[in-house]
């Protein structure tokens, strides 16, 4: 495989956990709830997925557990922000701290030790798709991937269609734009936001499972290491659309892959400058869009059922 294809394959690999989290974040933000808690939801998913796989000896059950783990943390977010009108951004930060503490604590506590245990499970294997997988260059890149990578790519399409072409998607987007009007039309924004945030947690949990079950096969404290925040940036750069998020996740994956590969080269700066790219690009895109950045209009605003 030539270098370019290898780079692309690495980009896709790095992008996959981000993609799940970003898709989840789009659900939440299009419904009007900032998704700052993605980092914690990913971590919860990575943890619960690994523990369940280890305890039950079945990767499928592990994946279900990662969905449940992410969703449970999302219930906390949904309850605080939607029911108690807590500030969405800071609540997101709070659950990230909570998730970091809780997963690290349970990881040690469950095994009754002060030190972090080492638990290894077999990472999910690649599933080559017959015929397509044999196409030169593109084949190995797209059609010889572990299962969650396929799921992520399919989800981009599913989410796009759901958001833009179904009644449920319309109600979700309307809730993020004008919850009062949505309420008047008969849907309950509180209900919609609850479902959207919990959906975000489920997807971000799967993103965590990509890390712990598909890529590494183990859990370490804080293993998401800022990926949730990067996914948040990918949502913005992708302008709250699923295909846009896919492209920006791949872009971030490519910079990361590039960064690893140029470390050996003699450059006037170290790889850290390349690592800054995703954040600087996000800022530049945001600043470039300026006031034209079309955030969902009611994002960050609490919705009160009764008139004020």
């Amino acid at each position, binding site marked *: 495989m030539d270098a370019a294809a290898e780079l692309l394959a690495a980009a896709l690999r790095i992008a996959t956990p981000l993609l799940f989290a970003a898709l989840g974040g789009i659900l939440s933000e299009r419904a009007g709830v900032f998704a700052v808690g993605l980092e914690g939801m990913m971590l919860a998913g990575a943890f619960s997925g690994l523990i369940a796989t280890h305890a039950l000896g079945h990767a499928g059950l592990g994946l279900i557990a990662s969905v449940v783990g992410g969703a449970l943390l999302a219930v906390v977010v949904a309850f605080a922000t939607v029911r108690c009108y807590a500030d969405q951004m800071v609540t997101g*930060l709070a659950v990230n701290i*909570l*998730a970091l503490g809780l997963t*690290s604590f349970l990881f040690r*506590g469950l095994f009754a030790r002060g030190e972090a245990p080492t638990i290894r499970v077999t990472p999910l294997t690649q599933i080559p798709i017959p015929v397509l997988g044999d196409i030169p260059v593109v084949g190995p890149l797209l059609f010889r991937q572990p299962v969650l990578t396929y799921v992520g790519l399919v989800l981009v399409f599913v989410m796009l269609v759901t958001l833009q072409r179904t009644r449920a998607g319309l109600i979700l987007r309307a809730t993020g734009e004008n919850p009062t009007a949505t309420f008047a039309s008969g849907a309950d924004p509180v209900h919609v936001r609850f479902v959207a945030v919990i959906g975000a947690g489920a997807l971000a949990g799967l993103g965590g499972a990509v890390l712990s079950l598909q890529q590494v096969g183990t859990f370490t404290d804080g293993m998401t290491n800022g990926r949730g925040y990067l996914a948040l940036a990918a949502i913005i750069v992708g302008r709250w659309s699923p295909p846009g998020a896919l492209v920006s996740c791949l872009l971030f994956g490519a910079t990361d892959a590039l960064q690893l590969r140029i470390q050996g080269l003699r450059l006037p700066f170290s790889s850290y400058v390349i690592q800054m790219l995703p954040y600087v690009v996000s*800022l530049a895109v945001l600043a470039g869009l300026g006031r034209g950045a079309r955030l969902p209009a009611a994002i960050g605003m609490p919705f009160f059922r009764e008139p004020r």
Partner: protein
Amino acid sequence: MRPILAVALALALTALLIVAAGKNPLLAYAALGRGALGSWDRIGVALNKATPYVLTGVGVTLCFRARVINIGGEGQIALGGLAATWIALTFPQAPPIVLPLLALAAGALTGAAWAALAAAIRLHRGVHEVLVTLLLNFVGVLIVSEALQGTLGEPGAGFPQSPLLPRASWLPRVLPGSDLHGGILIAVVAVVLAHVLLWRMPFGFRLRVLGASAPAAVYAGISPSRTFFGVMSLAGALAGLAGAVEVLGVHYRLIDGFSHGFGFNAVAIALLGALNPITVLPAGLFFGFLETGALAMQRAVGVPSPLVAVIQGLTMIFILSAMGLSARRSRV
């Protein structure tokens, strides 16, 4: 009252976790208390830990009072530490009293500049400050890594860190028999000044009006953008100062990732301190004592120390929910 209830509730919930882990929560909390307060040495360590939290938390408090959600503490702290390191390494011959003051000032200025950059992007390009400060955090921390990889790094250290700073730049110890350094005094002064600023000075009044209602602020002739820029820069200066204090008082060198989690903890402390500079001091001390006691608790009774982050996270969520609910009530 609300913060105390939130802490009590968080402690009660985490006690259940300790029980689930098969340990006695009372013994665990007792060990935590001993580890944090058991000797002058422990108290010194805890106060040192609390110092950057209090400094940064006071800045976040002022921001939140004006409804400016500045979560850029981590990057501002990192760059403040970087600037202080650069001054200390570049002017090692400077007189002992001048050098730390110069380094502290450089830290504060750099933190202020980084926050001012975020404010400028917010004001001129209309990007929400949460996103700007969050993204700039990553960039700031990476700038420190880059500097440690290059000119400021210690050759052959095997870890990204700067050489030891000249002794003349170190903050003096203030409590015999402990590592407590002068930073805590700086933090106390900052708390008092912020209190006076917020409640007794025109700028503080402008902050509070802006936070209560932006249209009212405009009607009263207050410029929201100037107030925004001012409070962000001030918070950045405090965070940068915190970074400089951490470098000059605790590590005596710049270490990669030294600011990790500080910025978010500062947000938690501002909330726990009920957005009041004076009460941010006990809130910051509480966090400092929690984190210092945690390792002792782990050693003594085998309860894992990350429990502290659970307490911190839960406390924040309770306070935020209570704030949301009471804002709702006052709105009706």
